[in-house]
């Protein structure tokens, strides 16, 4: 129970960073922290006390495995998170070349 709460505190730190910072790179960092917290929450739900990794071995004696379904869902989510972070960084580079700054309060003019 307290482990879930620590995971949610990590999520709230990322949320604070997205809401309150003015630098675009800081906002991208906050979104990255939110992704880590969500993936961690998924894997925490599937943990079984005293279990083993969901891979069969030749000489196993106990068949008490952790839940493999959340691990299968998070495996693709990690790589998708990398692709969306790269897309955001590409947009940030283009914004810097056009406006000359990373500050979001100065990028309000949509002309040109």
């Amino acid at each position, binding site marked *: 129970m307290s482990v879930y709460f620590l995971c949610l505190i990590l999520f709230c730190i990322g949320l604070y960073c997205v809401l309150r910072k003015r630098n675009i790179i800081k906002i991208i960092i906050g979104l990255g922290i939110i992704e880590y917290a969500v993936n961690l929450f998924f894997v925490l739900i599937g943990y079984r006390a005293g279990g083993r*990794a969901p*891979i*069969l071995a*030749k000489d196993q004696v106990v068949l008490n495995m952790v839940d493999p379904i959340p691990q299968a869902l998070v*495996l*693709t989510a*990690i*790589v998708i998170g*990398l*692709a969306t972070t*790269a897309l955001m*960084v*590409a947009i940030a*580079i283009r914004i*810097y*070349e056009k406006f000359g700054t990373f500050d979001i309060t100065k990028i309000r003019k949509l002309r040109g």
Partner: protein
Amino acid sequence: MKNNKEPGMTLIVKTITRLTVGLILLYGIYIVLHGHISPGGGFAGGVIIALSFVHLMLAFGREVALRKLSQAAASILESLGAIMFLSIAVLGFLGGYFFLNFFLNKGRPFSLFSAGIIPLCNIAISLKVGAGLFAIFVAIVLFSRDSGIPPDDK
């Protein structure tokens, strides 16, 4: 200083890169091919293969790395991986429904040629992920027109 004339990093980094970049590529291929026996699979192996090419580009400059795998070749490889994965899925329609495995037997467990279509799917996904991530990195490095980095460097 002597560093500014030739592209890439110092001599120590270049020597270590020459020794290890082939091993990194081989390790990535090993993780992809043994995806149904040991932990790993197509996604982790594909990212490791992309990392070996990124290592080559960071240490030697962009010309040497683009000679090994140009940007057009990376795009073609990525589309090839996607088409291969989709055709394995659609081929299951001949046997019943989506993704049905009817033409490869399951084999003995713990051997390399087992588990039906899973190794083929792993290879297709590793091609797609590896070539796609390398194409992203080349696009971000090549086409950003900032004033800090001259075009002959990195």
